[in-house]
């Protein structure tokens, strides 16, 4: 601040050299501060993103030098029935996962936003699955849902209900993955909603009470609209996460049984790292990227029309 003042006032001095101006500039200090992050992002995100775009125009197995084949990967994708099936699985998963996890979190957050004995314990219980590693979650669910020796089938048997195949049944596996991921991710959504709930001004709630609004009417007309920004954020964020589902599948079903849980990113992984079609895998990644971009823009556009309050 003082340095700039000297420079601007010092008209009778000779113009400072480029080096002096660089040293004196606040930009330099600013860039120096962000440089570590910028370098890391460039090396681990921007360069791979650019490189994978090039890769998607190549026939490349990552072992031998690749060669350019134009749009052939994208053309092959448009005729690939397994790719279409993977899109189908991804959509089914997303369409169930997003509403279930967001609505479930809303209910839980409202329930947890009260003065109860031991509320901290309940909040912790909801949050713990989020900080549990995916591998641990996956293995626990594999054990719980084991058709022969699992606890869930044991409970069903005790209740006189028929035994299920769960993750080993092609008709049930994807839904089991939904349950597992909702359990794993709910904590994050609850935290966001809890924060939003606690940000609602008390005087608004009191005003509606004085006006004679019922609890439900208050929730519907006051609380819910004020949670709009949080809901929009969670829907967008959950959708992006759901479309990129991979870890849980990798740890549990590996895309099976009979391909029933082969979602897009898992199919991408199979192509690139099991079949050595890295170019094809990169093309899948770019189709997914464009898909996510379009869906997100649409959600934000809808959100702008429906969400009136900004936090």
């Amino acid at each position, binding site marked *: 601040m003082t340095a700039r003042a000297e420079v601007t006032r010092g008209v009778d001095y000779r113009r400072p050299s480029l080096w002096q101006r660089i040293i004196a500039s606040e930009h330099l200090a600013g860039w120096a501060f962000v440089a570590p992050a910028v370098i890391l992002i460039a090396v681990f995100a921007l360069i791979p993103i650019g490189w994978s775009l090039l890769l998607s125009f190549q026939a490349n197995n990552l072992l031998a030098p690749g060669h350019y084949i134009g749009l052939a990967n994208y053309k092959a994708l448009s005729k690939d029935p397994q790719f279409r099936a993977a899109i189908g699985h991804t959509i089914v998963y997303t369409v169930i996962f997003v509403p279930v996890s967001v609505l479930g979190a809303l209910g839980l957050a409202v329930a947890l936003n009260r003065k109860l004995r031991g509320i901290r314990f309940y909040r912790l219980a909801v949050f713990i699955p989020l900080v549990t590693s995916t591998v641990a979650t996956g*293995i626990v669910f594999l054990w719980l849902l084991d058709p022969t020796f699992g606890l869930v089938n044991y409970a069903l048997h005790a209740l006189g209900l028929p035994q299920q195949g769960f993750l080993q049944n092609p008709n049930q596996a994807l839904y089991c993955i939904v349950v597992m991921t909702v359990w794993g991710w709910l904590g994050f959504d609850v935290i966001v909603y809890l924060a939003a709930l606690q940000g609602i001004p008390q005087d608004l709630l009191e005003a509606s009470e004085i006006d004679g609004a019922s609890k439900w009417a208050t929730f519907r007309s006051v609380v819910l609209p004020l949670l709009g920004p949080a809901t929009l954020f969670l829907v967008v964020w959950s959708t992006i996460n759901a479309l990129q589902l991979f870890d849980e599948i990798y740890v549990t079903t590996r895309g099976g049984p*009979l391909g029933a849980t082969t979602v897009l990113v898992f199919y991408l992984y199979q192509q690139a790292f099991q079949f050595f079609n890295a170019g094809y895998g990169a093309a899948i990644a770019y189709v997914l990227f464009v898909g996510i971009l379009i869906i997100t823009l649409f959600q934000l556009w809808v959100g702008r029309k429906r969400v009136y309050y900004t936090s």
Partner: protein
Amino acid sequence: MKRICLLIVTSALIVAGCGGSGSSSSASSTGSASASGSSGGHVNITLWHGYTDVEGTAIKALATQFNATHPNITVTPQFYGNSDYALQKVLAAVAGGKPPDISYLYGSWAANIATNPTTVNLAPYIQKDPSWNWNDFWLAARNVTTVNGKIIGVPALIDNLALVYNKKLFAEAGIPLPTTDWTWTDFENAALKLTDPSKKQFGWAYVNDASEDTVWRFWAMLWQAGGSILSPDGKQAAFNSAAGLKAMTLLQTLAKHNAIYLDDGSDVYPGVFNSGHIGMLWTGPWDLSQITGHQPYGVTILPADQNHQTISGPDNWVVFNNGSARVNAAVTFLKWFTSPAIDLKWATMTGDLPLRASVAKLPGYNAFVQKYPGIGEWAANLANATQSRPVTTTYPKISTVVGQAVQSVLLGKADPQQALSQAAQQVNGILSAPS
């Protein structure tokens, strides 16, 4: 002045930030040091492996022994983590221009590794030096080192599937124990008799995740029934045959009667076997340490339809080109390391099967067999590993298709003929596609 201090602090931060990745570059700096070391007549080479535990100790001990007896060469074993992810790491090192001289890599990658220009073709070294005694390596292991006439590796590990059975369950069911004369009929009858849903007891176990683990057991059955995977020219699927149908039908029959414990691929079956709920396994010596000390078990060869063939999944030591001096040193090391005497030493230290047939004639062989009860049967069973899976770049795709076919039969979603026809059609599509 304050600003300059800030600059110093931030640049220090940048340096510190880069320091995080510096740990990985230290590995490559040793690589360059050894490159300069080769000019002085003494050659330093690196060997990448994923060995832990007993094997980790053994590789260090044998490298030390080699270095002591070969004053011109120093071999440095470096642990690369889990072998499952070795290919990506080695490829990154190749792309960075500093590959390891020797790396342990899975046999299933052989055809793809052969396409990399840095991979050394060892055929000239082996052909001009008869003391390699190359044909002494088991056929199944040699097959996986050979891609289109090139030899892209030296056998590093060999295994095979044998029949492991729970003696107690056989006695309880009143069935005579499996013998080397067992047929599929004996096997099927025993599996059905050992099955008891009320006790959650299964005759057999099968890995049902549609991965290669699912597929290779099916190949063993296909070969036993006299079938083959591909036509002799490798251009057509050949598993859609009477033999293939027979194998699939056996799976279907046993699955229908709940005689098979279907493992989801997360390696549950050894535990279930240990708890006395599975009568028989088709498995390899890698499970030996897990199943020892729980149930009274026996090991024998697989049952026969036409023959008692088994399948082997060998892995390779692959040499990468870092200049002729280092390639020569790597070849010298591998020849020493896989020589019969050292191979027996390794097998005795680790419980791995010997790579060479002649090892069984060495005086120390009996001690090895006695140290690991059951290992002798697996070692002898290598003579039944007479066929190999196709060593081609398209094999992973073929495996996926056949894995789905086997899984669909096991889950009762398709009948054997339907599953085979559909899989054969898809495999023919894969084989005819331009690569």
